[in-house]
């Protein structure tokens, strides 16, 4: 890797240091071996029966234009890491959240704030369901999350 560090690398370096120092409860860094892809675990802290005693794995992918551009954030399915059930989370882990779209993203957001947003998105949910058209979407989608035109039909997240 060339010694040149772009603004994304610099910014992620700062974030990583902060993350190593402290993270809010329920959020843990799993791995961050480079400045392109990080994995974090999140848990819901209250006793919401939908997510009780579960841990979910998040994958962050950063472009070289981060934080001007949003990171790509998806849930990853592993034997002990299910995809949380939520009306805005498809069963392949893709998250429909305006914060992660080009429109809703702001460079002041960061990995920690995204994790906290997802945490609270889960905490506040009471519906035991997938988004409408989940099966079709999961079967047909070949796009990366950032290229999907989500229709943000629900503002009560």
């Amino acid at each position, binding site marked *: 890797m060339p010694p040149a*560090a*772009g*603004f*994304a690398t610099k910014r992620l370096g700062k974030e990583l*240091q902060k993350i190593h120092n*402290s993270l809010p409860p329920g959020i843990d860094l799993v791995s961050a071996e480079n*400045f392109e892809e990080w994995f974090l675990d999140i848990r819901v802290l209250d006793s919401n029966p939908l997510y009780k005693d579960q841990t979910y794995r998040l994958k962050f992918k950063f472009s*070289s234009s981060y934080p001007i551009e949003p990171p790509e954030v998806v849930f990853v399915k592993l034997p002990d890491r299910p995809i949380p059930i939520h009306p805005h989370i498809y069963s392949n882990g893709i998250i429909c959240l305006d914060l992660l779209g080009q429109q809703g993203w*702001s*460079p002041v957001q960061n990995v920690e704030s995204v994790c906290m947003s997802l945490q609270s998105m889960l905490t506040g949910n009471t519906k035991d369901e997938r988004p409408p058209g989940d099966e079709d979407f999961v079967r047909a989608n070949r796009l990366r999350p950032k290229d999907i035109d989500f229709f943000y039909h629900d503002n009560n997240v």
Partner: protein
Amino acid sequence: MEVLDEAFEVSDSTDWLGTPLAGLVAVEQSFRCHVCKDFYNSPMLTSCNHTFCSICIRRCLNADGKCPLCRASDQESKLRGNWALREAVDAFVSARDGMLRFARTPVVTASPSSPKRKAAELDSPETAMQENKRPRMSTRSSKTRAAQAAAQMAQEEIDDSEESDGDDFEPDDGLVACPICLSRMKPWMVDKHLDTTCPGSPQPDQASTSTGPNHRSIASRSAPSPFPPPSPSKTKPPDRLPAVAYAMLKDAALRKKLTDLGLSAAGPRQILERRHQEWVTMWNANCDSARPKKRAELLRDLDVWERTVGGRAPTMSRALNMGAQIRDKEFDGAAWAAKHDTSFKDLIANARRSRAQAERKAGGDEGVGESANSNPDPSGLAGPPTQQQTEVFDLQSGSPASRPSQPGPPEYGNGVEGLPGTDNGDRATALIPELNPFALHSQ
């Protein structure tokens, strides 16, 4: 992971955690940009009163034209320098190392015999004392500067008072002032002066001989931030570059712009635009700086950008080669093709369908003719369709319309089979299989 190690050396507001000066976490936080998380570099105020590094907010506004904090719309041209904050950040940064070193030094030495709980109480006066000592050493220069600045202000005040006095001040030189142009002259000259040489209004030159410097100091004071202008007259900041509407710019013009700026004009159109924009952003941000970098340094910065974000960035090149005309920065060509595969097929099918419909409208008997084509017995019905087809061929080959009458009907009597020998015939065979399926569908 060399890169990570390097990155870990960056300072952070959490450095103060666990030291007696933990309160400085919040102080330092307020000196850091929300976009790059670094200390403000040439902080700029937005219209919505938020502050970011000049280069950060310029990049953000280029991307979506909105304030990163409150999402209010804003424009680069409306940014204003936050000079007071710039000084505060500079002062804090220069004092930071010393403060941090002090904060991390154990304070047991001064009060070895203090009771356990009192240690905490003792910490604070101790801290305050040393804190007073330490920064005084390390910030002497800034103190001196402040003193100079104060002196300068005082000087200006003096000038000011002199000036205000000067308005009705009459020098004792035996002369009188012309009541109109205020030129000073001997009393007996006034009448003649008024009749002949008086310009009719106060003369700035005359007035400024006595009060010139003061006028200038007033002018500088009415500027938005008169307090120490970093280097008022040493170097004039370089001119900002104007924003460019890339959509209005032809390739050649854009390449010329880049060449004129001394930048590389190599690469696909999209990279050229982004390179130019990044240069304008860097350049203009540099204009906001108290200590502008040299052009060579900016070029190095652009090179870093080129290797990390721009044309030579490892992840970008592939996507760019695939579709320079697609404006999206990270164009996923494969997914795009896959996604639109069905719509391409739909478009083709639609085109075929509408062409078939047009063909059917063109002649009411065409449907009969096409069915005749599929019919092995052409004898009676073969006439009309061949006529129809020869008309089409004439249009395509540009030959005169009289041509169908030239060859006798018997030659075409066998319909399509007679045609393939000629050029026109080749086209006929190309057309017919395309049309037939739909003609059959419609029946």
